[in-house]
């Protein structure tokens, strides 16, 4: 977050402030780190990718004349002899939101330069993410076991399988990439790279706790996408 005291620049709130920021020199997003601005724009682009997926899914589901399977049943689990609808998905949502919360706290402690706390929270987030991916793998194998394939689906419209594997697969890839980076950043935090301003491997920039926030943005975005997938794929 921005330390909003810039020499020679007077900040204004609201839309007036927006006009002033936009028409000022040097930066448009005042006090926003380059990497953070980049992550935001990247996420905007990524939003369009996921939107296109979900729009295609909506179009496919809306225009098929074969019945769409009821996700509530397909994704249900038998627990102790009771059929619980969407149980696994509910747990996955729970795990992902938990990890989102730990990430948010990691960012907070990062800015307070609390190295230990920040590192442990990132690690916790990574483990949450790993759990999520694991459960997704379980869900995939369960569906495949039941005969759902990208090209066919015993419960109804074949597009159900296609869209399910493609969209959750793409989301899962995002989560996996996030997990890898979470582990790397946990290492970097514990090693103190952000305290001493060590340069990264591929960049000339000096390490800073803002990088934790940048990764946090990505991680929250993954959670955000899951909110939409949960609503449109599992609850519709």
């Amino acid at each position, binding site marked *: 977050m921005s330390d909003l005291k*810039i*020499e*020679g*620049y007077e900040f204004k709130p609201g839309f007036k402030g927006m006009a002033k920021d*936009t*028409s*000022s*020199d*040097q*930066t*448009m*997003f*005042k*006090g*926003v780190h*380059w*990497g953070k*601005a*980049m992550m935001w*724009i*990247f996420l*905007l*682009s*990524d939003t*369009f*990718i996921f*939107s*296109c*997926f979900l729009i*295609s899914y909506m*179009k*496919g589901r809306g*225009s*098929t*004349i*074969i019945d769409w399977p009821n996700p509530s049943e397909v994704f249900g689990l038998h627990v102790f002899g009771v059929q619980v609808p969407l149980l696994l998905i509910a747990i996955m949502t729970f795990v992902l939101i938990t990890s989102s919360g730990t990430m948010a706290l990691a960012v907070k402690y990062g800015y307070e330069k609390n190295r230990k706390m920040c590192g442990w929270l990132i690690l916790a987030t990574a483990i949450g993410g790993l759990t999520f991916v694991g459960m997704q793998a379980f869900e995939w194998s369960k569906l495949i076991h039941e005969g759902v394939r*990208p*090209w066919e689906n015993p419960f109804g*419209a*074949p*597009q159900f*399988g*296609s*869209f399910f594997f*493609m969209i959750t697969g793409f989301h899962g890839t995002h989560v996996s990439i996030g997990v890898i980076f979470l582990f790397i950043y946990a290492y970097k935090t514990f090693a103190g790279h952000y305290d001493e301003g060590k*340069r990264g491997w*591929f*960049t*000339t*920039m*000096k390490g800073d706790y803002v990088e934790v926030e940048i990764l946090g943005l990505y991680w929250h975005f993954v959670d955000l996408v899951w909110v939409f997938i949960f609503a449109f794929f599992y609850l519709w």
Partner: protein
Amino acid sequence: MSEDFNNNKTIQAQSSEAISGGGSGVGVDADYVRPAEVADQDLYHGHSFITKWIFCQDAKVIGVQYFLLATFTGIIGLILSWLMRLQLGFPGLAPFMTAEHYYQFVTMHGMIMVVYFLTALFLGGFGNYLIPLMVGARDMVFPYLNMVSFWSFFVAVGVLLASFFVPGGPTGSGWTLYPPQAILEGTPGSGWGIMLMCISLILFVAGFTMGGLNYLITILQARTRGMTLMRMPLTVWGIFTATVLAMLAFPALLVGALMMSLDNVLGTSFFMPTILKAGEVLEYGGGSPILFQHLFWFFGHPEVYIVALPAFGIVSDLISVHARKNIFGYRMMVWAIVGIGALSFFVWAHHMYVSGMNPWFGFFFATTTLIIAVPTAMKVYNWILTLWRGNIRLNTVMLWCLGFIVTFVNGGITGIFLGNVSVDVPLSDTYFVIAHFHMVMGIAPLMVIMGAVYHWFPLVSGRFLSEKLGKWHFWLTFLGAYSIYFPMHYLGFIGVPRRYFEMYDSPYVTSAVGMNEFISIAAFIVGAAQFILIYNIIKTLKTGKPAGHNPWQACSLEWLTPTVPPEHGNWGDRLPTVHRWAYDYSVPGAKEDFITQTTPPSEVAGSKVEKT
């Protein structure tokens, strides 16, 4: 390792820096520029040949790399167009031109020219070279990412060209890659070819995203002191808006390409309905081919402006510099660029009026499409009003600009035909469309590219390109291209459909034989004329006239680097400060007919600068 990084000093502002005491009413504060907000950028300087020229992190080198690779693929596209014209003008002359090959060449020509040539050249080439220089940055903000961007593009081109050598050859589904035919037998390259095309596009999009993030953040967050958005040259505005479009439009292409790959490889049915092929029902069902068209054109229409907007921006700068006059209505020009960019997301289905989509869309898309004509027309008016009462240097650069205006206005007006829904019905899928889009997004941007090459070559190499060769190059290209595409509209009026391998068996088309021969000959000449430029460049690099510092007397920052050509880091040890817009030409009362952007107000105290 530490000496690999330069440690530029962050310059804090002093309000009293460089002040001439005199001038009526010009006080100390007139030259004030706010202090730097962020520390100066550290750069990695390469030492070996490989880190300096191949895996280089300098945006200027990357720009040249993009330029060269895009030009290389462009030449392949050009050769393919020759082969196509050979078939159309003189069918049967070349025995290897079978229908399969013809359609493969059509497809590859289209895709190469739109994506791998024009997009890469404008954004990757000019964008990389000019953005940091024009906004006064040391480099792109993420040099390493920028390098990866180029190499992704390199791999994408490699994969694309590899498809010429796989079984079945490259895809022949037309550059729009419409399913179901793109992945069904009956279309050449339906197996490997389309697969490699999709992979190549995905790689291109990934690489471009890396580059695009760089362009955007450099423009938004790394401008030099005093450089406000409304002081940026229009070139930067054009490239900036085009990059925004690309970042938001390429996702749709990525998704489309991915889904089509899955249809092809895994047998999913995203775009595939039940299909009967050679008496057998294939294992597809329930998909919608029109969905792909929506995704494709949601990308495809902004793509048109991804090519056009940088051209708009660059040509504005070229006209202004060489007419020695400020660009007329700068604000209007900026808002027109931004407005066209924003509107371009709401017009995509005007490519699909006869595609069988919901017929009521026609009303919506015809209206939005024709609304775009207004800002576009304003830009045209402003270009010619910039010439009005200017002092026009009729050199090669200006000739290309004039050529651009003629071809662009021509192509833009035929666009009004095709955007207006019921006028489009008889004309769509005919040669009229071919003529229209080649005129407006083939020839017109090409004119700008050529003008830009002649304009900025002295900056890149320190030498002038030969004017004499340049004029030959221009007249052959302009007159040739005009005589290819102007008559072609009339083939469309007759009703000759596009993508016909041969067409002379229809009674009312036979009259077009002569014209097709003429067009083909013109195409051969225009294509050959492009090699004049290559010869010119090679010759100039050896024996060209040295250009020196700011040879065109331009105002914008890229000419004001301490060294020509600019070094890595661009600005020596001090970043420039900017005091005015990039168009202070012929200001009354000024000593010279241009005032550079870095000239502080106190130095031009007597002149009547309206806007700083």
